[in-house]
């Protein structure tokens, strides 16, 4: 039986704690995409994001009875779990070399102006993703939550365990760092470079 969409998260959590799999499935359908996107933006890795979603929801299932809706909304709680899992993952994977897709420069021929613009736009997004991934994690979290996931400053502060003012200052600093990195990347892209076909 599919539960109605308007069933409150707190109610679904209570049912989940009692072993109701359908309630858990409804929570998953409601919140998994948010957790997935957060993890993807934080790690830059789809496979890692999938693992983090799984860990976050397994943790939700295990600790459902301990969830207190008066302390935080479920999305804030899930961001907190996803953040913890992401940090663990990043700490663990620091030892390994990352092979970044797009590290090899592509040689492409744009057939028309529209294709050229679309490609340029993709390159810009790709550069922005790279610049976000290069930020220290406390600044990256602020950008991902507030600018890319529309989380309010108050909820971001609850997720990150800091004051709202700290979120604002991290966001300000993160944007400044991003702007600087993108300017450098754009200047570098304009320099004539030796290209080779692969």
């Amino acid at each position, binding site marked *: 039986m599919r539960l109605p969409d308007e069933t409150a998260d707190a109610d679904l959590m209570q049912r989940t704690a009692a072993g109701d799999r359908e309630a858990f499935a409804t929570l998953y359908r409601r919140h998994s995409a948010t957790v997935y*996107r957060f993890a993807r933006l934080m790690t830059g890795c789809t496979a890692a994001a999938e*693992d983090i979603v799984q860990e976050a929801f397994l943790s939700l299932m*295990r600790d459902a009875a301990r969830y207190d809706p008066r302390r935080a909304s479920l999305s804030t709680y899930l961001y907190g779990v996803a953040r913890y899992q992401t940090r663990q993952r990043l700490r663990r994977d620091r030892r390994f070399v990352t*092979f970044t897709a797009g590290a090899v420069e592509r040689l492409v021929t744009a057939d028309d102006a529209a294709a050229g613009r679309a490609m340029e736009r993709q390159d810009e997004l790709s550069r922005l993703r790279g610049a976000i991934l290069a930020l220290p994690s406390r600044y990256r979290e602020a950008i991902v939550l507030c600018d*890319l996931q529309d989380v309010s400053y108050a909820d971001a502060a609850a997720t990150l365990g800091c004051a709202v003012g700290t979120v604002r200052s991290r966001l300000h600093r993160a944007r400044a760092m991003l702007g600087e990195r993108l300017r450098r990347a754009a200047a570098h892209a304009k320099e004539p470079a030796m290209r080779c076909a692969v």
Partner: protein
Amino acid sequence: MNLDEQLEALKHAENRVAVPAHVEARLLRALEELPGQPADRRVNRAGVFVAVALAAGIVVGVTSTVVYFQRGPAPPTLAAETVGESVVLVLEPPGVEETVRVVRIRVARSALESLGIHTVASQGTDSVEVDVLVGEDGVARGVRLAM
């Protein structure tokens, strides 16, 4: 585009990203294995029988897979052979005198599953260590993983 516009464009692009369906399937499988579930407390004799039957099925399945890799015909584009306790997937055979470097990396189990390789994750993690055999031109020649 300035930074605000770029962030807005990235937000729109990310909002279209959905969780792959296999993640939910994997999660449901993991839930079944989660100890201390309320459903587990209602275990009865029929449940024990089903669990034993499932375990037997898994053992038979794993054994069949190993036998298949040992004896079965290799797929045309992805050959697998058992060497000791490892399985080597040959992507593109190295040249006769080519020097091959071995790079050890950790990959998500799901990535291997997408290639049809089902492994038991070590120490409860969702990733496994594999050795990638890299040719002189930087192209992977094969992947070796302990079974």
